[in-house]
């Protein structure tokens, strides 16, 4: 049913730390690797070894430059996947009921057997989180690795989304935002986590942590500077002659 649940018992989601992300795209690869072999249609590629490769991805890393008014520009790597919005516009537009948000944990999923591939949910999503698989004609999106996080066949340490598990810089965190005492909730409160495009009222569950303020280079006294000054600005004698001679060559 494409009505949204009024409340979800848990709010599972990700915190993405824009300060720590180094833009290595390991999460993109891990995501594609896990989700192309697990449940449902694989994530197909078109012309993968040809001139214009393209393919279905559930997670992509963009890179932005931010230029503060009075400081040097800084580079921010920006991973983006489904934000599992509380008020998910992609769910309500679905004509078939394939798109739904789970009442128990808030994960937004697609039932591929019911998807007609009309693409309206991808239009309704502001974040570009849904991509139509060109081989299967069904909508693919981040499942928050629903087949990992509850999977008792996996060691406990692996029961988190593939992107989080693989991130080498610790820029991705997984948890329950409904629990105020959870690690992710505390992290968001501490670091001032924010929503993407809040003006659209989608109430994303996933939060982003801003880059920490950078140190600024300031003009300060350098104790070595006097020692590094050129000793003679207008040298005479042999050195003066050598200087002039070399300049003339």
């Amino acid at each position, binding site marked *: 049913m494409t009505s949204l649940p009024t409340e979800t018992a848990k709010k599972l989601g990700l915190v993405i730390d824009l300060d720590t992300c180094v833009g290595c795209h390991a999460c993109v690869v891990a995501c594609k690797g896990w989700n192309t072999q697990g449940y449902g249609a694989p994530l197909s590629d078109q012309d993968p070894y040809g001139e*214009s490769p393209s393919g279905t991805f559930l997670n992509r890393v963009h890179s932005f430059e931010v230029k503060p008014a009075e400081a040097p520009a800084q580079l921010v790597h920006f991973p983006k996947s489904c934000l599992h919005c509380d008020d998910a516009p992609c769910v309500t537009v679905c004509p078939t009921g394939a798109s739904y948000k789970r009442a128990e944990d808030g994960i937004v999923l697609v039932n591929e057997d019911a998807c007609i591939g009309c693409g309206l949910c991808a239009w*309704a999503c502001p974040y570009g989180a849904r991509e*139509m698989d060109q081989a299967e004609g069904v909508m693919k999106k981040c499942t928050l690795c629903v087949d990992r996080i509850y999977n008792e066949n996996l060691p406990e340490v692996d029961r988190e989304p593939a992107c989080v598990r693989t991130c080498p810089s610790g820029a991705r965190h997984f948890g329950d935002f409904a629990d105020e005492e959870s690690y992710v909730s505390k992290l968001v409160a501490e670091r001032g986590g924010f929503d993407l495009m809040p003006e659209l009222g989608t109430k994303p569950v996933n939060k982003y942590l801003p880059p920490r303020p950078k140190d600024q280079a300031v003009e300060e006294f350098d104790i070595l500077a006097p020692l590094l000054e050129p000793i003679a600005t207008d040298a005479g004698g042999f050195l003066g002659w050598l200087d002039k001679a070399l300049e003339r060559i």
Partner: protein
Amino acid sequence: MHPAPSVIIFTVLSGIGFGLLGFLGLGFPSVTGWAAFAFFAIAYLLAVGGLLASTLHLGNPQRALRAFTQWRTSWLSREGWFAVATLLIMAVYGAGLVFFETRLMALGWIGAVLSLATIYATSMIYGQLKTVPRWNHWTTSLLFLGYSLTGGALLSGNTTMATYLLAALGVVQFVYWTLGDKRFADRGHSQGTATGLGGLGDVRMLEPPHTGTNYLLKEMVYRIGRKHAQKLRVIGILLMSVVPFALLVTLDAGHLIGAVVVLLHLAGAFVTRWLFFAEAEHVVGLYYGK
């Protein structure tokens, strides 16, 4: 947005088809027998043909019947219901006119209202999308109803009505463009809000996530149409409103002039509907610096 031919054909043709059904339902023209058969045949060909065209862009059209299940929340589902209800009720009403020379007035009125509801539901598929500010406005519904009624009036031979509607539609289309041009900026969407980094400074795309293209860019960041948009707007509005209006005002509307006017209007409607999609900017473009 990507102007998919199937969706352009669908919205234009089925819009006019349901517009014609609306006029037939109200009894303008009040025809029976073979004349009624001809009118209804045209209306059904357009309406059903358009609906069938719309299934061509589906990834899995064999599951299309499932689209009737979510009418509580989905405008696409509601459109399906309204369309089928209209077609069924107008089939009974049409059979009365064609085979029994009887006009079931109440049924005709219900059919006419349902025709309008179908067109409104179609318009809301686009009008509901906050992600496309140009569409997300009540003028989108006005525009779709305008095209439907104008096309319907032309095809049903209500010349005087069609003349007024052609003029009104020209104005509505112009207003839609003028208001729409500013809306993206007015809503305050920027790369700053998209990334949440706007508070730190000017945000600029440095490197896209991939060197090639992807579904999102093809489907929602279609930009080719914006190059010739102004020229196409002039061509479109001349063809679909100004020239047909001038022809109807200056010449006596016979069958020949009628046919010319319908074809001109239809050609113009295809141009403006192409622009409706091609010019619409989706907020996801902000993540790609576009």
